[in-house]
């Protein structure tokens, strides 16, 4: 089915497309028929800079299964990184 649902989240950071970095402040997250990936449905994320008009995006389309793996990987990297940078891991 086609869905109209878009989850929006404010971000602080940058994203790179080809050779150029740009600032981003928003992600649009949705689950619908993808444009490029040969799947019935995909998790899509558009990284945009809404403050700059929001017209240009850096986009990804992921299968539901691998999107969930990505969520886990992001959490794991954050947990481990924040511990290490806080000096909680002593080697």
């Amino acid at each position, binding site marked *: *089915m*086609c*869905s*109209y649902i*878009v989850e*929006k989240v404010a971000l602080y950071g940058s994203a790179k497309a080809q050779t150029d970095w740009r600032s981003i402040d928003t992600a*649009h997250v*949705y689950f*619908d*028929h*993808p*444009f*490029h990936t*040969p*799947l*019935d449905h995909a998790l899509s994320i*558009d990284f945009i800079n809404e403050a700059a008009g*929001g*017209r*240009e*995006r850096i*986009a990804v389309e992921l299968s539901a299964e691998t999107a969930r793996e990505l969520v886990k990987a992001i959490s794991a990297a954050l947990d481990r990184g924040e511990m290490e940078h806080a000096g909680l891991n002593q080697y």
Partner: protein
Amino acid sequence: MSYLGMVTEVVPFAAHGGEAGQAYYARPTTQQTVGGVVLIHHMPGWDDWIQEATRKLAHFGFACIAPDLYFRERPGSPDDCAARARAKGGVSDDQVMGDVAGAMAFLRAQSNSNGKVGVMGFCSGGRHTYLAACRLKRIDAAVDCWGGRVIVEDPADITPARPVAPIELSAGISCPLLGIFGNDDANPSPKQVNDTEAVLKKLGKTYEFHRYDGAGHGFFAADRPAYRPEQATDGWRKVIDFLDRTIGPRARFA
């Protein structure tokens, strides 16, 4: 026996509000006059699939135009325009109906037109097709392929852009309607398809519904896992036969 040739091009047309729209247009190379079809894309936009389906209808002897419902988001690629439209909550029903009416007028203005025009769409375009059958004048046929939210069950789906459930407007249907559905689809579900049919039957409308076992949503799309070759082949035959009867005769190679 051979095949019809065809010509394809991107054409301007007068869209809703008199705006200059763009559309993909394919027509068979024949001296015969032909019926026209406005083909409405799904929510992800004016993609390769809709151009392919446009050419398929021309291959089978109809003039076909697929308007880009997101042209107002240009400049940019069709997928970027679709992303911008989605971020705004999608396009309004009124705007889509204006665009479809403009595309219908384009078809009737061509020298190859036999004067008859149908509308066909997939997924959200199927819903728009049902809506066009209810709201637009001088429409000769409608083909709804698995249009969801014709019946609205979640109040959140009633919005300023989409203020009325299409089923509520069914009394206005003025043309034969063909429906193509997969029995494994969740939107529209088999129950929603049955409920829609009950409304059409009660209103005395002319319709044909074809339901396919072993098929879900979007089973015509050969580039996705939902593709079901047997059901899709039969479904396309049903579509071509229906259009031949309602807006034809279709052009054939002599």
